[in-house]
Every structure is written in C-alpha cells, then in structure tokens.
C-alpha cells in the first residue's frame, strides 16, 4: 500500500520511495529511506497535506508525494 492510504496513528515501514528525481532526492535526504518507520500524525484541515512523524521529528508532505511512497503496515 502507499503512504496516503495509511491510517492516522498507525506505524508503518517504508518499502520504496518513487516519484520524480528532485522530490525523491529531497525525501531521501529528509530521512525517508527504505526501512524507516513512519507514522501519520494528522491530515491538514483541508485534507491535504499530511503531517508525518519519523526519526523523531515532524514533516509535512502532500498526498501526491505520499502516493509515490510504498509502505507496509506494522502490526
């Protein structure tokens, strides 16, 4: 499944980061590397973007970018 489908508050592990190179490079630099555990804190009041918690900090990214990130839900 992709990151945008992840339920709020459920931890998941990143499997693959896709998308165009500039955005992908930025995401990797920000620590969204395969294997990283992430969790969606909340969606913005208007539904997009979403707030992500990873590596002990908070990051905001759009649903469009989240669709290119493949994750697997953790039990």
């Amino acid at each position, binding site marked *: 499944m992709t990151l945008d489908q992840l339920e709020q508050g459920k931890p998941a592990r990143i499997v693959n*980061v896709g998308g165009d*190179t*500039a*955005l*992908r*490079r*930025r*995401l*990797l*630099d*920000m*620590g969204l*590397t*395969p*294997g*990283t555990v992430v969790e969606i*804190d*909340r*969606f*913005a*009041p*208007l*539904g*997009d*973007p979403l*707030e992500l918690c990873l*590596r*002990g*900090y*908070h*990051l*905001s*990214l*759009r649903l*469009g*970018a989240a669709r290119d990130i493949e994750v697997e839900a953790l039990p």
Partner: protein
Amino acid sequence: MILALVGNQNSGKTTLFNRLTGARRQVGNFPGVTVDQALGRSRRYADVEILDLPGIYSLSPYSSEERISRDALMSGRCDGILNIVDATNLERNLYLTLQLIDLGLPMTLALNMMDEVEQQGRSIDVAALEESLGIPVVPIVANSGRGVTELMRTAYETTLEQRRPLRPDLCSGPVHRALHAIAALIEDHAERCQLTPRYAATKVIEGDELLLPRLGLNENELDACEHIITEMERELGTDRLAALADMRYSFIQPMVAQVTQLHADRSQMSDRTARIDRVLTHRILALPLFLLIMALIFWISFGPIGLTLSDCFADAIAALGARTAEALTAADVNPVVVSLVEDGVFGGVGSVLGFLPMILLLFTLLGMLEDSGYMARIAFFMDRLLQHIGLSGSSFVPMLLGFGCTVPAVMATRTLPSRRDRLMTVLLVPFMSCSAKVPVYALLASVFFPHCQTLIIVGLYILGMLLAVANGLILRNTVFLGESIPFVLELPPYRFPSPLSVWRDVRQRAKDFMTRAFTVIFVVTLAIWFLETFDPRLNVAGDGESILASLGRLAAPLFAPLGFGDWRVVSAVISGFSAKEAVISALRVAAGGLAGSFEAQLQTLLSVPAAFSLLVFVLLYTPCSAAVAAMAREIRIRFSLPLIIIFQTAYAWVIAFFGYRTALHVAAGHYLRAILVLLLLLGSWLLVYVASRRRRPATVKQKAKGS
C-alpha cells in the same frame, strides 16, 4: 580566516550568528528565514569572519539556497566549517554533517538546544560523539549563549591548526566499496578541482549535474564509474540515491542511539507541541483560529491601540512644528523658509512618523508568530488553498509578510524550492496591502467614509487578495505552466518566542522604516515642496503656477476617467512611487494652497466615488521604488523594472476605472447599474481565464513536440 556557518533550516543558525558577531539578522522559527548569505566579524577574534549560509538539509543542488551554500563551501573561500545541529533532532541533522565531513575541511560541530535535550530528560555523550565523528563537538544553547565562547575557541583553534576530520571514511558495505573504487579512479580529477576524492565520488554516484561536467571525466572513466555503480545497485537491490542516503542514515542511527541516554521519560517538549498542534491544526478549529489570530494582530496594530499611540505621536510632532514655525516667524525669518520647515519638514515627515507605533506593534506580533513555529503550521494548513493557484503553502508566509512590507516579503520568496514558485509569488505579493498603504487608507477612509472606515479598509485588503487569486489562476495557465514542486516542509516544535530575537527583528524593521522616513520620504517631501513652491523660472510661484502643477496638469487627463484628474492628487500619486506613505505628505503639501483644514482640502479635491477610486488605485499601482527594486532583483528578467511599473500601473488603472464607475452608480442610488459594472468586470476576467485554459493543452503539446 573565514568560517562557514552551516546547518539545517531551523537549527538556530542565525541566532548563533548573532551571538558570535553581534550582527542583527532576522531570526525565526520557520525553516528558511536566512534568505541571503551574510558575512560578520567575530566579536572575540578580530581575524575571523563568519559566513552565515542559508539553512540546508543536504549538499545536493535541490533548491537555490542549497546551491548558494554549496557554491560557497566549494569555492575555496572558506577555511573551516562551523556546523550547527539541533540536538533534539540529531538523527536528521547529522545527515548533513556526514556530507560536510566528506568535504575534508577543518570542522567543528555545535550541538545546539542542549537545554531542550535536558528538559526532555535526556543527555548526549559528547565525548563519544566526538570519537565517532572524528571532529570536535561543543554543546551549546544559542538562545542563552551557553557554551558559545567555548565553541568559538574550539572552531578557531581547529581551523587555525588545520585539523581536518579524523575519520573521513564513515561507511561500510557495498556503497563503501563502490565509493573507494570510484574515488581511486577519479582522484586526479577531484584534486584538480580541489575536492576530496571521496566527496567527488559521492557526487559521481548521485549523478550531480553541476559537478560532473567540472570533473571532466572521459568516456572510459564514466563507463567504469557507471559499471561500479550498477554493480553496487545490483548487490544492494536498490538504486544509487537510496543507497547513499541509506548508507548515511545507517551510520547515524546506531551512533545516535549509542550516544543518547534517556534518564527519565519526560518528553514534555514533544508533548507540548503535540498538545498545541491538537488545537491549532485541528480539522475544524485551525482556520477559524488562524483568522482570529490574524484579526487580533491587525486589530492591535491598526485598531484602537495602534491608533491612540499614533495620534499621540503625530500630535506631538505637529505641536513641535508649530512651535518652531512661531519661533522662526518671531525671529523674522523668510516666510519661504518658515513654510519649508513647518509644511515641508514637520508636516511631511511628521505625518509618516505618526505610523511608527503601528509598524512596531505589527512586527512584534508577526515576529512572535515566526519565532514560535506557528508560521510553519500556517504553510501546512494553507497549502491546499495555494495549490489551487499552482503554489505551495510555503508561499503563504511571504504573502503574509506582504501585509507588513513588500520588500522583506519579496526577499523571503528566495526560500521557495522552485524558480517558478518564486516568480509567481513575487508577482502576487504586491496585491497584499503593505503597511505603508495603511496610512493612505486610514486617512482617506476617515475623511470620506467616516461611518464605515473599517469596512472600507478591510474591503481593500480583501479586494487585493481576490485579485491575487484571479491573477494567480490566469498566471498558472499562461506564464507558469506546469505543477509546482510539491513541498516537503519540516514542522519544528513550538518554542517560546525569544524576546531578544523578536526585539532585534522589530528594532531592525523600525530602523529600516525610520531610515526610509528620513531619507526617501524626506527627500520626496522636500522635492515636492520645492516643485510646489517655485515656478519653472525658480521664482516663488503663485497659486497653480508651480513646476509640479505643470507636471500634474500634463498627467492629469490620464487620471480624469478615474475621477481624480486634479494635478494635486496626480502629483501625490506620482510621489507615492518613492514610498507609499509619501502620498499623504505630498497631498498635504500640494493641497496647502486650498482653503480650510486638510480634511476640507481633501473634500474639495475629491468626490466620494473619486476617493474610492483613488483608494483602489493606491492599493494596486506600482509598488514603491524599494519594492520594485527588490522584485527586479528576485525576478532577474531583463527590463523587469519598467515592466513591473508599467504593468502594475496599467492594471491598477483598469480596476480603479471599474471601481469608480461602480462607486458613481452606488452614490447615485443606481444599485442595479453598479452590479452590472461589476458583472462586466467579472465577465472580462472569465473570458481571459477561459481563454487561458483553452491555451493550456496546446502549449503542453507544443512542449512535448519540442522535446
């Protein structure tokens, strides 16, 4: 000796820069407040200069600030690096540190925000961190200054003795092997470019478009590198970019876990941020709360409190002017000089200085928002709205700053990740009413619309925003085709605004404003007074014979369709180019020949619909010279300066024309006709919008064909 100060956005870099140099740079708790590089001399070491670079997350050339920082670091100008990291967010911050170590320059690490780490009940083993990274590490609290002296001494000695990183080889596994193989292969090329082979090798693996041509590898070498990289990718089952990022994080993660100890689980900080966020970014409450906060800020700055303070100020200056004029008259001084002093100097500058309290209040409050971390949340929940006009939430903050002053707002656009977003934001910022226009609004509204002052002023603000949206929708379909780069924005923890940094910011802005009031506006006031007092033969002019009158009469017919074709108003509008506040002082001086108080003079000059038209025109016409200069600098298109002036003024003319017609009908009680005029305006916009949408697919196709 030049020390480059490098760190992630929001790591406290500019605060540390202020501590080290005593310079006054604007600081905020919003990623990317440093919009340009600044050089400051160290307070303690006279031979050390510190280069404050924009905050970056990586050395890849993703955004313009990353490029600025990279170019500065690779230029050979810097003798050493001072890397500041947020100790509460060590894992992500050290990612940049590893890349900086690759550069091979003498380097010192500043562990900032140690007080917050302690409050969280954690501690960091500094010696172990030093040992793992091979560079000196100094814990500091940039806000309070703790450890800063020690940091500066360490950085100074490290750089003076050219102590390079001890462990330049921080990796393992297949990436490590690939890096070494490539480094050996390109060693000569790297050294010719004065780069460490390891750094050059990482850039070869990343396929860095800016660095690869500089290295000048031949076909064989490129093939060999590519072979090594594909071999590595095959072995890891992942691609090169992910492999490199993963290598760095795989090194950092266990190291951070090892050096950090949790003594007591008191993660209050993140708890506090989570608690605040639960309310401030709440699904339903967020937008009303945001509007409430903004309304409160504007109410305090431009409402009763700001006004009372302003009135006291203005009255005091006027009294001083009258007293001085009396004294001069009593001393039998030439009446022309007395008029210069009272009307030109005290009248002009006084009416502008009266608005200083408002500006102080506004920027104190905006500074607190910026420092607290709320600005980043605004970008977070406003992103969706700006997506519609093809921008990202990051553009919201520059636009918001546009309500303060167009100059810093335009400068703040430099933190936006794409040139497209930057250009578009720069073009839309002037539609946000800057604070310098407020005096003009306030004056005209109080004279002509005494019963609905607030409504008129708020209405003008809203009109500007509506027009920005209308233009944005057309711009995204014509000039700025294509999607904006989706934004990836860090949401920093909420922090209590540091009074010191807010105060520094406010002081700087007040100083800017005062400088402007006493230079640009002062000069304009005097120039207008001169043009008004003398006729073309430099004799003291009679009524309506002055140089300005001739100039105003020349341009007046152009403004007659807008209802204010009087040379006095036209000359005031022209002088507003130097600074928007100058419209008032110029009006005051120009209307001096008419009978009655200033209010009565204004009422002689303008009808109520004409005053409305003038208000709309002032909202939209060319921004002041300082703003146009800033815009031209950011846009960097040839002839952009005259283009901006001409386009904005022509645009303002059209909208003011419609505004005037509407107001005329409303004043005459013909509401239906007024609505028809507005519909006509809306219709013409729709026509342009639909036409721009039609063009869109064709242009995309052409582009595809072209490529």
